[in-house]
């Protein structure tokens, strides 16, 4: 991210970088190929027991050589350097590692990277609107929907998935839709308000 973009401000006066440090810098690692170069739909076996998977991550085609035991979380963070997705419980309980696969939220710690082969993955880096915060992120800032912020990328992705499926959710739907994400700081009341606000923003309401 260049100096100019560091100084880019969103309308709320919060820059991409100081929102949460770890939300920034979505630069992909060496595994990134140019658009359209990875057409493989099946994991290919490499000679050394590795598999080659082709994913579409935040709109970019990516090929990665993985071990069968690697989770999607490990590949996103360690190979693609998309560290916005957080490791938490590593047992499918806390939701910090939530990403969208084909638009649907799931836990990347409970997903083998091999299972994501041929699928479309969206991480928190992928919901930015250019250098501006995405609607859900914007709403989280407006409603102070975090304290330490560690669970926030997962919360944002759960909310993003919920709102794609249900653009105008009731409070009960929001509570249910966000129930797979724990917040140890207990910011739940603000999170629910933020998701409601994000729905407004996505529907084209006043920013």
């Amino acid at each position: 991210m260049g100096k100019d973009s560091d100084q880019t401000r969103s309308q709320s006066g919060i820059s991409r970088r100081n929102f949460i440090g770890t939300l920034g810098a979505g630069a992909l690692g060496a595994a990134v190929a140019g658009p359209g170069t990875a057409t493989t739909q099946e994991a290919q076996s490499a000679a050394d027991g590795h598999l080659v998977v082709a994913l579409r991550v935040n709109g970019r085609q990516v090929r990665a050589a993985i071990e069968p035991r690697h989770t999607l979380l490990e590949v996103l963070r360690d190979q693609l350097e998309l560290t916005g997705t957080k490791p938490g419980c590593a047992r499918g309980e806390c939701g910090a590692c939530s990403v969208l696969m084909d638009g649907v939220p799931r836990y990347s710690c409970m997903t083998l990277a091999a299972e994501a082969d041929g699928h479309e993955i969206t991480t928190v880096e992928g919901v930015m609107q250019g250098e501006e915060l995405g609607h859900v992120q914007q709403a989280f800032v407006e409603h102070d929907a975090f304290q330490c912020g560690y669970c926030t990328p997962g919360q944002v992705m759960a909310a993003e998935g919920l709102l794609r499926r249900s653009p105008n959710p009731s409070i009960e739907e929001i509570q249910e839709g966000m129930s797979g994400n724990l917040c140890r700081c207990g910011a739940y009341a603000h999170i629910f308000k933020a998701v409601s606000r994000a729905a407004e923003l996505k529907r084209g309401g006043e920013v």
Partner: protein
Amino acid sequence: MLPNFTYERPGSVDEALEHGSSEGAVLHAGGTDLLGCLRDGVFSAKKVVSLSGLEELRGISPTRDGGLRVGALTTLTGVASDPTIAERYTVLAQAAASAASPQLRNQGTIGGNICQRPRCWYFRGDWHCLRKGGDTCYAIAGENHFHCIFGGSGCYIVHPSDTAPALQALGASVRIASRSGSRTVPIESFFLLPADDIQRENLLEPGELVTEVLLPPVASGTRSVYRKVRDRGAWDFALAGLAAVVTMPGDSVETASLVLSGVAPKPWRAAEAEGALTGARLDAETIARVVAASVAGALPLEHNGYKVALVRGLMEETLRALA
């Protein structure tokens, strides 16, 4: 990091059965239970055989007899949000919607949900318990708050599935494929007690695969409901639950199917309670009799006596709501 294994993603059921029959192979449907077991060392795998390439095992379609076929790889979200299931097999839609969290329901499948391994913390932990081939059940003298009050002997797990009791209350069957052919087994006889086999929760043999769940047609006037009690408001396994399917054409109950979750090593049919309900008017007197019958034979351990009261309360609340 997970222990290492090889990975196969076959494109046909036959190929999956071939891979699944090799030594040390495990099947991967949604993977949400499997990955937890591998990470915790509950069992190991030389080869993970992913079923995610088997499109023919996904989806819900009507059967010739007026029932429904649910492909084993249909996600819990898919089951919970299907309009036909929600309308005609309400108990199943409610059970699927109450399982796990939204993310896990998007990934977890109906076939995997009924085949998941127990959540007993001794089984999941570093204890070489009876179910893992050891010689002791550590729950008997240990922390047994979440263990069974019915059907235990030697081992005191509860079956963790929410959809299994709903399927049993509906009289569903499962279709099982193997290299030597396929068979259809009623859910009622699919699950095993520790007395039947202390290391398995169901009668699947190595190399067998559940391919579909078959729901029989429902009689008109059938009412069904799944009620689940958890330690917290959301995202937890059942402390106790009740799948109830009742037909009541007039004033009295014609048929009643009452299957409990969270209290036994398999979905537990409350047979005495069903007997007390069948043919009776659904009034306060009947409900009191059914409630008393629902805990007949309960044998709580040191810390799970509260489940007896929980079952009574579940039964009373559910029947009042149906009356």
